[in-house]
């Protein structure tokens, strides 16, 4: 038995894993069972005249067939089916032994129960029925050919051998059954361990996902809280500002009586400062609106050249004060653009305003063009230019190219970031096209000719400051 165990172990190692377990089991059973059956038959034939080919067949069955059956099964496409066919062939061979042992009861019973036990062990009831049928047919055919010459005498040697074979064979099958049961238990334990591991991994994964989800919602909540805070702050800032700007205007309009010329100039400074402050507050609010996803475009068709000209002319006095040449070029016959005119004005005012603000001498040139499927507005200045290392930073919030210039040039540093977001909301771009330190910069602002993505002209509502119902 130890040998069998060793054999099976060796097989486990030597045979590639794709050998069907039934094929492996059959080999072990045959390697032990076939020689034992041959020995029983030989013990009977020893005293009787036996042709040489029968001895040869017995030898072949005992020692060649176990290997041949194994290889035949292994190379077959359907290993299990091939193994079953080999077992049926075994049944036929065992049937033939009936005549060879002259139907002596003891070896006949031992051999037939042996083969049927093996067959049933491998293939269950269907294979048992098939095996029994084949075995019986061959027995009967042999018996007819031998004219029912059943010998009555059985030598003691044959009886002892038969019983020994029966005992050993049953033992072999019992050990195989034990081995399979143990393997089964081990496999089940492995599966249980694996599923426990998988369970633990799943739990860890779920935990990680939950944490990621929590982090995400915390971030969203924080973002929402920030936007709400900014919006509320904006409201709180606007309320007193409303009073400052409003009263200044009322006084200037002589609501409370004539205003002396000296006081008028001072009041105009108050009003201008108030409006500057309002501009900054508006930028903060715009950014918070954009971040909260609450900035909705009021999309409608409009004449882009008119919008650009109006935006530029609102800055003309500023350019004149600095002695800059401010020019615009808009080709005639441009089709209507589609977008939020107020927001596009905001972008143009920001770009041109920046150009004027940062340029101390020379010119600011604004051009509108239609290139294929997009409108492009380019603003070129002869200002200080933007150093390569600052080119991405200028589009970020609260950044100006050179922080040392923040104070003299003023501004919140939000304008360009907001302008870029507005361009992107329109499905366009805002980029620094080219810049050379000391020579100037060119900014490019594009919007798609077809309007913002997801908005059709038909659905576009005209921009109205005062909705009426």
């Amino acid at each position, binding site marked *: 038995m130890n040998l069998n165990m060793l054999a099976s172990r060796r097989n486990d190692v030597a045979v590639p894993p794709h050998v069907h377990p039934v094929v492996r089991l059959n080999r072990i059973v045959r390697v032990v069972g076939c020689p034992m059956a041959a020995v029983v038959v030989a013990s009977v034939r020893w005293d009787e005249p036996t042709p040489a080919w029968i001895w040869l067949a017995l030898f072949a069955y005992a020692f060649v067939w176990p290997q041949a059956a194994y290889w035949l099964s292994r190379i077959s496409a359907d290993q299990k089916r091939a193994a079953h066919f080999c077992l049926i062939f075994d049944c036929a061979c065992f049937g033939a032994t009936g005549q060879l042992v002259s139907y002596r009861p003891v070896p006949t019973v031992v051999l037939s129960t042996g083969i049927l036990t093996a067959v049933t062990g491998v293939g269950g009831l269907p294979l048992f029925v098939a095996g029994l049928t084949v075995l019986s047919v061959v027995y009967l055919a042999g018996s007819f050919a031998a004219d029912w010459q059943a010998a009555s005498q059985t030598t003691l040697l044959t009886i002892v051998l038969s019983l020994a074979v029966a005992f050993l064979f049953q033992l072999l099958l019992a050990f195989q059954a034990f081995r399979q049961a143990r393997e089964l238990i081990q496999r089940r334990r492995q599966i249980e361990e694996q599923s426990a591991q998988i369970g633990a991994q799943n739990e860890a994964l779920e935990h990680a996902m939950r944490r990621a989800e929590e982090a995400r919602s915390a971030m969203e909540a924080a973002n929402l809280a920030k936007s709400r805070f900014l919006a509320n702050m904006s409201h709180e800032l606007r309320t007193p500002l409303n009073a400052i*700007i409003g009263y200044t205007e009322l006084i200037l309009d002589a*609501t409370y009586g004539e205003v002396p010329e000296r006081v008028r100039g001072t009041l105009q400074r108050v009003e201008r400062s108030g409006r500057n402050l309002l501009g900054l507050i508006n930028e903060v609010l715009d950014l918070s609106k954009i971040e909260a996803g609450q900035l*909705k475009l009021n999309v409608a068709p409009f004449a882009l050249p008119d919008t650009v000209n109006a935006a530029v002319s609102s800055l003309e006095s500023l350019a004149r004060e600095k002695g800059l040449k401010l020019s615009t070029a808009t080709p005639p016959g441009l089709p209507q653009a589609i977008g939020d005119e107020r927001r596009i004005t905001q972008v143009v005012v920001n770009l041109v305003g920046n150009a004027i603000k940062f340029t101390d001498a020379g010119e600011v040139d604004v051009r509108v063009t239609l290139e294929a499927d997009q409108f492009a507005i380019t603003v070129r200045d002869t200002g200080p230019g933007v150093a390569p290392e600052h080119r991405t930073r200028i589009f970020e919030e609260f950044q100006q190219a050179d922080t040392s210039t923040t104070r003299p040039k003023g501004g919140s540093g939000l304008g360009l970031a907001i302008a870029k977001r507005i361009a992107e909301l329109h499905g366009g771009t805002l980029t620094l096209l080219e810049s050379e330190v000391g020579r100037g910069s060119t900014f490019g602002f594009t919007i798609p000719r077809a309007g913002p993505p997801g908005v059709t002209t038909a659905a576009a509502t005209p921009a109205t400051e005062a909705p*009426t119902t």
Partner: protein
Amino acid sequence: MTKRILVVDDNEDNRQILIDLFSGAGYEVIEAHTGLDAVMIATREVPDLVLMDIQLPGIDGYEATRRIKAQAALARTPVIAVTSYALAGDDRKAADAGCDHYVSKPFSPRALLAKVRTILDGAPPPAA
């Protein structure tokens, strides 16, 4: 006959600007400090126009407008919403509540007066 304007605002400074503005322009001005006051005074006085601040203690300007507009005598009274949030959807909410017009703070008194004149007199204001 002098037209009457109801000014609703919880902030005294802002209320005073509107009172000064419209009184100076020759309108009669009545005032309310809260949304509920506004509904009560509007019902009693039946003004020709309402300037409604949106951020009010208690019921907000939208709700007050809804209650004012629900009355047959006031259904056609123009209401101008004044808001300082200026968030997306504010104009929409104002329209949904029944506000006829919408201005965001800070407003220019000059522009607001022009707007009110257009609404009340149906004619552009005389050039100032």
